[in-house]
């Protein structure tokens, strides 16, 4: 799906008109930057390919998580032209709900408690899936409530008002999560609904045994990595189907194209908008649970940085574009993993935000974004 873009695009209308006099400074800067990046990656790839592959896998894992969050940003922006900064915190809520389900209420154990004869593997899958579904549902309810309470009254207000409200909602969720009855001292370690197993690749695939260091040059990956990749791809496919093949998808596209006209055609714009928030929140909730399982840690400000990076991913891919969100997220994941590996870990956020600045300077519409169409 390609949502039409925002009306305020400062970019380069009509491309090659007249070059700004000092444009070559910026261009040569970019070329030098690109050469440096390629040189760093190239030399390290040659020097130690297995280490490079290891970072690449970390980057894929991060990227696919960001993809799940970025979809929510991009869809909401496509429909209501609102950058929903509370989206990262919905992601955090997803992680918290799964924590409560598992650590407090032992919900991941229900299949074994109800059907003691069930095989452990099937019970674990069923239990984990139900934990994930509960988290997604809570996120959906939360996002729809936020939309109804905080954004809907401001639908006709200037966009900056809605944006500030979004930031307010985001802070509310973060600091509500930090209250002592939500975020008790006994929150760490995050208890996983299923155990994480790792394998390493060297002359075939072997299981990692606790206490035995894999041989040098082996590339390790875990089951949670595979789950994140598969889940993220399924989410993409489901969304593509939803947007292209269903009535609701048509309504979404129509609303994003022209809200007033869509309303005249008998589309219930309010419910379409709520539906968009709900879908985005469901994916963010899924991402939140998988993120918490992968890195086994939760805290109330968990959502800020992944949320912002997913936002950058959405801008990089072209905000409003669904494939763009995936591509942007994968690039962000790699950028972060390679920075962590070859420069230093604290630099990762700096690099992420540098990418945002560069995208806004060079191609504000993003990779998949189309130049502004004039509205009649």
């Amino acid at each position: 799906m390609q949502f039409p873009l925002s009306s305020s695009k400062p970019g380069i209308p009509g491309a090659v008109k007249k070059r700004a006099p000092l444009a070559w400074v910026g261009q040569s800067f970019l070329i030098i930057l690109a050469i440096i990046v390629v040189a760093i990656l190239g030399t390290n790839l040659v020097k130690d390919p297995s280490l490079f592959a290891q970072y690449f896998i970390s980057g894929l894992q991060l990227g696919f998580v960001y993809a799940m969050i970025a979809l929510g940003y991009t869809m909401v922006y496509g429909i209501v032209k609102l950058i929903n900064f509370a989206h990262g915190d919905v992601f955090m809520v997803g992680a918290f709900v799964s924590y409560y389900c598992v650590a407090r209420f032992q919900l991941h154990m229900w299949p074994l408690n109800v059907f003691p004869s069930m095989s452990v593997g099937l019970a674990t899958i069923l239990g984990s899936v139900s934990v994930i579904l509960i988290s997604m549902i809570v996120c959906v309810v939360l996002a729809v409530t936020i939309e109804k309470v905080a954004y809907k009254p401001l639908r006709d207000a200037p966009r900056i008002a809605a944006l500030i409200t979004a930031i307010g909602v985001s802070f509310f969720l973060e600091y509500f999560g930090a209250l002592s009855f939500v975020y008790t001292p006994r929150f760490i370690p995050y208890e996983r609904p299923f155990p994480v197993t790792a394998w390493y690749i060297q002359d075939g695939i072997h299981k990692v045994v606790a206490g035995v260091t894999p041989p040098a040059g082996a590339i390790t990956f875990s089951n949670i990595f595979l789950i994140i990749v598969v889940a993220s791809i399924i989410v993409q496919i489901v969304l593509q189907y939803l947007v292209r093949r269903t009535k609701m998808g048509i309504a979404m596209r129509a609303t994003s194209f022209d809200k007033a006209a869509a309303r005249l055609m008998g589309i219930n714009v309010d419910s379409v908008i709520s539906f968009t928030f709900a879908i985005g929140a469901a994916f963010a909730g899924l991402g939140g649970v998988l993120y918490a399982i992968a890195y086994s840690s939760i805290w109330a400000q968990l959502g800020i940085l992944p949320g912002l990076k997913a936002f950058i991913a959405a801008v990089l891919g072209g905000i409003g574009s669904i494939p763009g969100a995936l591509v942007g997220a994968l690039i962000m994941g790699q950028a972060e993993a390679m920075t962590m590996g070859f420069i230093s870990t604290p630099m990762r956020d700096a690099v992420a935000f540098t990418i945002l600045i560069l995208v806004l300077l060079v191609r504000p519409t993003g990779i998949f974004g189309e130049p502004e169409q004039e509205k009649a």
Partner: protein
Amino acid sequence: MRKLRIFSVLILAVMILAACAPAGGSDAGDDAGSASAGEIKVGVLVPLSGQVSTFGVSTRDGILLAVNQWNEKGGINGMKIVPIVEDGQCTPDPAVNAANKVIDQDGVHYILGEVCSKAVIPVSEIASAKGVLMITPTGTADVITLNADGTAKPYVYRACFNDSFQGAVGAAFAFDNLGAKKAFLMTDQANDYVKGLSETFKATWLEKGGEVVGEASYTSKDTDFSAIIAQIKDANPDVVYLPDYYNIVNLVMKQAKEAGLNIPFVGGDGWDSSDLDLAAADGGYFTNHYSPDIQSPEVTKFLADYGAAYKDDTGNPKVPDALAALGYDAANMLFTAIQTAGVDDVDKVAEALDNIELVAVSGTITIDEFHNPVKDLTILAVKDGKVNFETVVKP
């Protein structure tokens, strides 16, 4: 419009409720202002929310246990101790606000806290400026008790040993006892505590003839340590020094275990928490102030008193960690000094503190010229789901 009005009334109601909720423990704030004659107010600044709130809960419990014991004996020279507990969040800004609140509003002359070095440092500036005597139970950064010119701040003391000592002992232990020759250092560059330990570890390590095969930095907000773990695997050290708090230790060691890394980690007292993931930290060692396994009459008595006062989730007596022990010791240092001084006078109490010799839970404490306590250091090992006492190092 009407809906909106109802809604805003609701929001107001929620806000008022929220404001009432955390009232527990700060009843003393009611009679704010002048300190009446028969009582001594003590500000207790600890993190009760945020990422390291177990530190705050333990420290507070240790301090309040000492307060209750003194009050049961009739107070200090007949004066009742009134603790005023504030949440400093282990973060500079909230800690400074809490310090200003207890000093200006409640009129305390004595502060016990904060817990984390990065919050203690700004609080210590305020305390020296306003002439309030403070003892940090657990702030280990060297600069806490020192002015820029290397002299001791007049009213700032601590109940724990400082980073230089801890990092050096960690290095000596890894080199001599573990027989390691190659070390890998992990440092949070934004955390004074971690940086302090890491720097002194490195200095001692190189001095002893060890080799540093790699260094990596990260931030406290990181959750993904896969890149650093890949670097460690590549460098293949004998020991990894990770002197951070338990939340980071849990994450790093869990991810290292899952990647199959089998290299011992060594850390500092930040590991000491009931929330340390013992399965993940298995095989690790850390330097600490105290262990409940030490056989001494003070430890035995403290264990019994603490267990009688505090129960865990299942109703069993709680076992105090080092933070509880240090909170208890810090409070006892302060109260003993006030008793020796005989008056509620900050200068006299500071003088008494300089000459104190207290048989405390974490060893016999005397104070050196830089306001650091001179006492034993304990090394603990995490093994098979338990934290075991390994050895004691004399100062």
